[in-house]
């Protein structure tokens, strides 16, 4: 399906229902902000939570997908005769199956491919699917499908894709449209005004999401109604796409994802496997479960594009930035996808003259999907190393240089002011807590080990746009039910939302029942991603809870014959605020027994008028470089975040360290490797050779420093997004620390011992 991931700028604010009640900002909170265990921790630690992978339905079949093993090929022969007769096989779906001609991957002129496209443009492209009584039998049959391909010339590298005579991935060549150029001011003039101009080329590798739970779905029909359990970040997006694809009304498509094992952006869109499961389920009249393999997860469910970024920067001796020019070449794989990176260059620092030119090219590899802060870690890798280089050039302290250029408004949004910007505090307080000054001055060497510290700043650029609705229901005994559409992808969404209810209604967390992520029974929420889950949902939940309290107090007022203004809801009791004092437990409120439930509905408010609310961050790293072996050890780390109000201190901290961990992967261990000179296949499509950080790769000494600017304008909870800022500047901070330690600027991510050794050797030669 079309990757509708929005541009970061210029979206309309959500529409909402009239009237818009503006809730006063919270002052001191009694539940929100505390360190509280997750409301569903029991389910997850006991093993009783049922993820899509765990769904077992009676009569269920298992499906396996046959995929093209070549980087670029045309299907020549597909014979399913033998496979069809194998034990346990119930159905096989191919391009020839009725209804299989489903358009897929869209460009400007429409569909570029289809479900089982005989023109396979990437390793892992779907060719056929088998449903059988057990997964073993499904795979036996998939292997027995007689298939032959005409192998075509391929291209694996963005620069090669632009060369004359490069094999064409798409008709019309390998450029995806014209370069995207954005400009303000006059960069030539800006460079002329600068006292120092630096230019550097940076490269980042292709990072792959690989969430712990594999991608997959279970599909079940009841006549014309389809129920799908999908490991997804957004049940409503999947519902919409599925309904469109299968030409069904939304009311006939139910998508459920109450527990899902991570996505990081790879589970925002409808997967081919989901459509295939639906078809096979229809063909067999049995539920069908289709789970991808781990090897598949490297090839065909998205990635973070690799980018080559040329960055030129001009600065005055007093630290004022005068010009920034970014030229980026990225590849989103075989079909149109977003490989843009320029946001931070355009908006993080004040700069009147900025020009960015971004080109996306096709290569014969899996199509990109948004990955945790798409484009931002790549840009931070370049920009934040450049800021350090500029600081060194003009002999300015690197933190001072950044502080000098912090804006109070968004330059890419017609200078719309921020509701709050805690970036300076992130840098200053972060530096203080980290012991920055002393660490920068200390001697760097200890035998063969060189120590260094580095900093990097960033922001996240999307405030989210879709609506969200929440319903809070009060049971007659005073316990509550919270109904939200959001998936909890690991960020603690259910817990945070329940805490909002607890804050407003005084109901303890253990008495709040949370329902989520079911298109049939829960309210609309945008997909959980883009660091906007708390931002989109918590204010709606607050409003719903407040509406419940309002109705409750009105009812209590009738029963107790006291004005509403003299009543409050506290500790699960209606309490009077003046004499005679009465405390009535909700379970004793007769009227509650008569109405049975009180229902409050809340919707997300529009964005703050004329302003923009975004999160900011500064990361600090200390590294130890072993100059004999090239090993880079991250000794300690500090993450200072302005994400507005901390909703749950425990889960907030976990998110931050989680983002840092993913950033360590980007910085030091991860990268897709293609056999570019021979077959174009991915050589490291497994979790041994594609190396994500292990327990031994993260520092034991990690600090999370929340910086709360007490933003009363961003929304009625004062919170801003966190999930993505937590991974944006991590790698750049590490690279800056490596530079401080060794004097070597590592421009190519990841910084492996292999690369470090080569660079150390070069340095040795140069000396």
């Amino acid at each position, binding site marked *: 399906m079309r990757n509708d991931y929005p541009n970061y700028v210029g979206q309309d604010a959500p529409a909402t229902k009239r009237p818009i009640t503006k809730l006063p900002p919270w002052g001191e909170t009694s539940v929100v902000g505390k360190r509280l265990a997750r409301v569903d921790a029991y389910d997850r630690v006991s*093993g009783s*939570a049922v993820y*899509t992978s765990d769904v*077992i339905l009676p009569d269920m079949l298992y499906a396996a997908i046959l995929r093209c093993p070549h980087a670029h090929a045309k299907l020549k022969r597909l014979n399913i005769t033998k496979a069809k007769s194998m034990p346990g096989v119930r159905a096989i779906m191919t391009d020839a199956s009725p209804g299989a001609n489903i358009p897929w991957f869209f460009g400007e002129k429409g569909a570029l491919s289809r479900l089982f496209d005989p023109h396979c443009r990437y390793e892992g492209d779907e060719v056929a699917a088998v449903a059988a009584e057990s997964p073993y039998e499904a795979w036996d049959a998939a292997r027995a499908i007689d298939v032959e391909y005409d192998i075509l010339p391929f291209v694996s590298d963005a620069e090669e894709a632009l060369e004359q005579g490069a094999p064409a991935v798409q008709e019309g060549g390998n450029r995806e449209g014209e370069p995207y150029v954005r400009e303000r001011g006059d960069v030539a003039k800006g460079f002329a005004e600068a006292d120092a101009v630096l230019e550097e080329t940076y490269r980042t590798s292709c990072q792959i999401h690989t969430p712990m739970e594999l991608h997959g779905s279970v599909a079940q029909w009841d006549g014309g109604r389809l129920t799908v359990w999908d490991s997804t970040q957004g049940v409503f997006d999947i519902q919409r796409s599925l309904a469109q694809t299968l030409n069904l009304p939304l009311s006939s498509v139910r998508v459920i994802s109450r527990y899902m094992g*991570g996505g990081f952006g790879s589970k925002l869109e409808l997967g081919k496997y989901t459509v295939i499961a639906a078809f096979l389920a229809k063909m067999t009249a049995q539920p069908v479960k289709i789970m991808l393999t781990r090897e598949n997860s490297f090839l065909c469910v998205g990635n973070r594009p690799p980018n080559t970024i040329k960055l030129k920067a001009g600065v005055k001796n007093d630290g004022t930035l005068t010009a920034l020019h970014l030229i980026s070449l990225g590849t989103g794989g075989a079909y149109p996808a977003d490989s843009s990176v320029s946001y931070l260059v355009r908006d993080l620092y004040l700069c009147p003259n900025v020009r960015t030119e971004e080109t996306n090219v096709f290569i014969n590899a899996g199509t990109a999907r948004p990955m945790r802060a798409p484009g931002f870690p790549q840009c931070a890798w370049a920009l934040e190393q450049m800021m350090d280089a500029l600081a060194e050039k003009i002999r300015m302290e690197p933190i001072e240089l950044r502080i000098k250029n912090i804006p109070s408004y968004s330059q890419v949004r017609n200078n719309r002011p921020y509701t709050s910007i805690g970036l300076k505090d992130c840098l200053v307080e972060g530096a203080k807590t980290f012991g920055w000054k002393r660490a920068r001055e200390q001697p760097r060497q200890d035998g063969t080990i060189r120590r260094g510290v580095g900093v990097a700043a960033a922001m996240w650029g999307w405030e989210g746009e879709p609506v969200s609705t929440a319903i809070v229901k009060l049971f007659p005994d005073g316990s509550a039910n919270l109904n939200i559409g959001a998936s909890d992808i690991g960020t603690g969404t259910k817990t945070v939302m329940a805490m909002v209810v607890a804050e407003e209604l005084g109901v303890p967390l253990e008495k709040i029942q949370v329902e989520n992520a079911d298109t049939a*029974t829960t309210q609309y929420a945008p997909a959980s991603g883009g660091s906007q889950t708390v931002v989109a949902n918590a204010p709606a939940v607050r409003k719903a809870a407040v509406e419940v309290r309002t109705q409750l107090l009105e009812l209590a007022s009738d029963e107790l014959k006291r004005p509403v203004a003299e009543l409050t809801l506290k500790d699960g009791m209606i309490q009077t605020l003046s004499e005679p004092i009465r405390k009535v437990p909700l379970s004793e409120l007769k009227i509650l027994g008569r109405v049975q439930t009180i229902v409050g509905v809340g919707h997300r408010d529009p964005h703050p008028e004329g302003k923009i609310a975004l999160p900011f961050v500064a990361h600090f790293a200390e590294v130890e470089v072993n100059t004999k072996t090239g090993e880079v050890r991250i000794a300690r780390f500090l993450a200072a975040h302005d994400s507005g109000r901390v909703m749950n201190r425990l889960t907030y901290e*976990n998110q931050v*360290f989680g983002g840092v961990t993913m950033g360590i992967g980007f910085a030091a261990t991860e990268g897709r490797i293609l056999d570019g000179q021979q077959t174009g296949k991915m050589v490291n499509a497994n*979790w*041994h050779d594609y190396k994500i950080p292990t327990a031994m790769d993260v520092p034991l000494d990690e600090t999370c420093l929340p910086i709360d600017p007490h933003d009363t304008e961003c929304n009625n909870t004062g919170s801003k997004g966190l999930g993505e800022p937590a991974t944006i500047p991590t790698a750049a901070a590490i690279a800056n620390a490596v530079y401080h330690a060794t004097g070597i600027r590592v421009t190519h991510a990841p910084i492996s011992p292999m690369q470090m050794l080569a660079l150390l050797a070069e340095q040795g030669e140069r000396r």
Partner: protein
Amino acid sequence: MEKEKKNEVTSESPAGMSRREFLGTVGAGAIGATMIGPATATAREDSSGELPLVSITVNGWVHRMRVEPRWTLLYVLRDQLGLTGTKPGCERGECGACTVLIDGEPRYSCLTLAVEADGRRVTTVEGLMDGEQLGPVQQAFVGEDGLQCGYCTSGQVVAAEGLLRRNPNPTMEEIRMGMSGNLCRCGAYDHIFKSVHRAAKLRK
């Protein structure tokens, strides 16, 4: 072939039920019972006509069953016995999500053939419960928030239990080493270490 719809998708979505409730509706599961033959998929006979018969004790209950030699312990636990707490992450011994204890030692069930588990005692995450109450390691993970999406959590909890049985008072570095066979893509490592540290205290 005429097919009767056996399950009803009512307002309770199976994915939201606890596993125990769900097993009741599905009819799979062999809690406390001796089982002859697998519940959901038919093990097909091979050329010699008979499949190996194994006896595996899982969480204290003995299961006698015929298995295909190629079936992994992971597959048997989940798809035959309905114990879906143990998770498939890679099926290649590269992630740890499938960690179980075999005779008290942490092992990857995806790399263990069911036939090789014959006569052995297997403990899964479900086996660390105390009835419906969480065991001490599980409690520690709740208290220290040693999880995010929760998918690696079963494996982490079982690996932690195995570590603490062998070394009841590990240092942070020993904890890190002991847990180094369990990936967490959400990056909850810091909290996982703290959870294991706390679990050591709770187990006393």
